[in-house]
């Protein structure tokens, strides 16, 4: 280790939706790597340790090394020639880059979608139906005396969620931390999060909706048949006790994860949970909050919403935004074989999409921006190597509670940022579109 060391205080970790902004990073400037990340959880430590500067080409075109400028030219040509290009990903980059990506999608009449469509998309749909009573995480730290997690395992997915926001921290009206709170975990299996909970409720798989609906009934004083236990695995007494606790707490919160949104019922499940939280406000103060995964997936929702009016699954092919999940969600349209080009930003769909979707991606020109070699970059026509957001580039990301947080980079990367590459593509696309319009006159 060299002597050339820099300490970055209040740095931001963008690994997960917690977006912890209290990192103290020790940076070896000769080696261009972070050697120590104080306050980071196990996932954050790995994130900081593994994002070094690797010896990789700036870009690949058809597998051949190329300059960034050459790759920008090919990307712009592909996107302007395509009949049905898709722009997808966006959850692991800055809002500044997301704004450029939405602009490109708008200009070329693309389909625009983010990883929200494969995680909390159903919660976005439920939100449109019933609204949401919600709060920033600091409010939960300060006030919540009943904390319920549903269909999530934060001990492994968001390790600091308990300690920073919701279970152990001492807040303004929760001076004794965990002693001032009752913690409930609802899930289909006993996960490593269960030991943190005062009450663990195990639900039979695929019966979350029934349990939530029964709770709504109990909260409103309706009778629920004891046969609920045979159907859901949860006894009526347990449900009555939970409903009672919810009505009598001072400030309650329901956190929910993909164990709720991606199981049977999907947006009906999210909708039932949001409606339950709303109902409880007749009796006390109650909020709900989806626990978001990627570091800036919440920013992607926000940017896409303010520029188009819709959070994801947006199509610009008619010259204006249209919204239709199922039709304009990327998995669905790739499986149908609709797209004829793709711009993938900071995401690796070839690693996690269904086989038929990946097969279609192999048939079309794919442009990908990523700091690392990925499954998607390996099937891409154009692959850009980028700097890592938060570690190498500044910008803004949104925490899972919609709070915008600035990034404080640790060291410089030789590679351009997503924003720089997307801005260059956008400018070139504009030139090509103007030229095309001029020829048509």
């Amino acid at each position, binding site marked *: 280790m060299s002597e050339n060391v820099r300490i970055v205080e209040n740095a931001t970790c963008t690994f997960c939706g917690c977006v912890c902004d209290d990192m103290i990073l020790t940076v070896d400037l000769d080696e261009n790597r972070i050697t120590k990340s104080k306050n980071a959880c196990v996932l954050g430590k790995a994130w900081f340790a593994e994002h070094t500067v690797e010896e990789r080409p700036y870009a690949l075109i058809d597998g051949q090394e190329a300059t960034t400028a050459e790759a920008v030219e090919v990307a712009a040509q592909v996107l302007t020639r395509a009949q049905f290009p898709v722009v997808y990903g966006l959850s692991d980059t800055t809002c500044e880059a997301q704004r450029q990506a939405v602009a490109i999608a708008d200009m070329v009449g693309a389909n625009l979608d983010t990883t929200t469509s494969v995680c909390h998309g159903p919660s976005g749909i439920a939100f449109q139906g019933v609204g949401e009573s919600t709060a920033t995480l600091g409010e939960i*730290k300060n006030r919540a005396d009943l904390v319920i997690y549903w269909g999530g395992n934060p001990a492994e997915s968001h390790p600091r969620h308990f300690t920073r926001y919701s279970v152990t921290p001492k807040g303004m009206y929760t001076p004794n931390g965990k002693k001032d709170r009752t913690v409930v975990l609802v899930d289909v299996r006993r996960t490593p999060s269960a030991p943190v909970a005062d009450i663990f409720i195990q639900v039979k798989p695929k019966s979350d909706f029934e349990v939530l609906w029964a709770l709504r009934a109990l909260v409103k004083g309706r009778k629920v048949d004891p046969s609920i236990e045979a159907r859901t695995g949860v006894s009526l007494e347990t449900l009555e006790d939970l409903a009672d606790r919810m009505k009598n707490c001072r*400030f309650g919160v329901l956190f929910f994860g993909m164990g709720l949104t991606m199981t049977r019922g999907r947006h009906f499940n999210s909708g039932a949970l949001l409606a339950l939280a709303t109902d409880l*406000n007749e009796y006390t*103060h109650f909020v709900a909050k989806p626990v978001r995964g990627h570091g800036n997936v919440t920013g992607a929702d926000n940017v896409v*919403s*303010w520029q188009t009016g*819709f*959070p994801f699954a947006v199509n610009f092919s008619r*010259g204006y935004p249209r*919204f239709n999940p199922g039709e304009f969600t990327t998995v669905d349209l790739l499986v149908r074989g609709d797209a004829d080009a793709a711009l993938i930003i900071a995401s690796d769909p070839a690693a996690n999409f269904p086989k038929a979707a990946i097969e279609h991606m192999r048939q079309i020109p794919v442009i990908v921006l990523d700091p690392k070699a990925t499954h998607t970059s390996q099937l891409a026509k154009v692959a850009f190597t980028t700097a890592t957001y938060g570690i190498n580039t500044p910008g803004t990301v949104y925490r899972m509670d919609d709070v915008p947080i600035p990034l404080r980079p640790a060291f410089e990367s030789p590679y351009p940022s997503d924003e720089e590459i997307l801005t260059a593509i956008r400018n070139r696309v504009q030139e090509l579109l103007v030229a095309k319009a001029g020829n048509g006159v």
Partner: protein
Amino acid sequence: MSVMLRIVNGRVYDPLNDIEGEVRDICVKDGRIVEDVPPEAKRIDAKGMVVMPGGVDIHCHIAGSKVNLARKLQPEERRHDVHPRTLFTRSGTGGSVPSTFTTGYRYAMLGYTTAMEAAVPPLGARHTLEELHDTPVIDKGFFVLMGNNALLYRLLQEGRKEEFRQAVAWWINASRAYTTKLVNPGGAEAWKGGRNAYITDLNEEIDSFGLTPNHVVQALVETAEMLNLPHPAHIHCNNLGVAGNYKTTMETMQAIGGHRAHITHIQFHSYGGPFGGKHASKAPEISEYINNHPNLSADVGQVMFGKATGMTADAQLGWMLYQVTGNKWVNADVEHESGCGIVPFVYEDKKYVHALQWGIGLELFLLSKDPWRMVLSTDHPNGGSFLSYPRLIRLLMDREFRMEYPVAGSGDDGELLLLGSIDFVCAA
């Protein structure tokens, strides 16, 4: 190189300089109006057009976290109101809460050149600025919410006045705000900390702080004045929408004393009747007070019949609207700083309270002796979209048009539409 422009043949209106419909040239150099420019300056022929100062929307909700929640909440408003892209402009969608680019273009097409986002918690300032960057053509800024700030409350409670002022100044500067905003002072604490309780009295104690809304109003009004902000403290009074609330509004204005302050969407705060009971108009009383106090200004917050979106930092109001309508409801608590409520809403001329609100707004406009201090607003999108401003201006300028509305009744007063008679408003 300087940019120069000569606008010729337009009919010029400029109330500040008493120019009323004169056909003359307007010269512009580097963004400022000047006496003359050389002949090589670019010319725009404005024959057959009105040339006037750009409109300024002093109070609207166009950018930031609550606005974006309201966009996400209402896809149903968008499909039939799209804004297509061109080669040089961006696409978007409309409804009562348009997307950012569409907001900028539509304000500009109305002849408005400035719009001020009226309620931003410090925690959401960065979000608001990002959206304003994506709101083209118009000038814009925002007011930062200070009236429910727990840390400021603590300083006030401990009598640390100088630190209180420094903290307000720091927040204004750090968030890049234009002035301080108060919304239902004390209400957020009652709502979030007291199982959705309300604050209803200016002298009621705010839970766990040993303060009253009265203290908060006075401290922030004085601080804004002392800091010499370009616009004084911008106040959304307690008890918005509640019958009998004009007393709270009067008490707030009295508490302000001789200091400068702006009372916003005052129409929603000018109701008589028994507290919480049946509404009546107190526009004449409110109007008289404002007319007689040149230190005060207000905007109206006119309601326009049709679709609106209730969108407010006043969470208890959001809950009230949800209770009344049963529509989908968003509540969003912001730690230490604010509450928030959002509810889709429709104003209907057949409904007693809505018709009354419409009439009270017009009364406030028409009774004002100083239009510079009774500013046009719909509290967009709370009373209606900014796109309704041309209709609202016609309502104010054209008595016959006004009287065609069934709810307007048939007033015999030459100057005024209603003169405060509630029976009169609802006679139809």
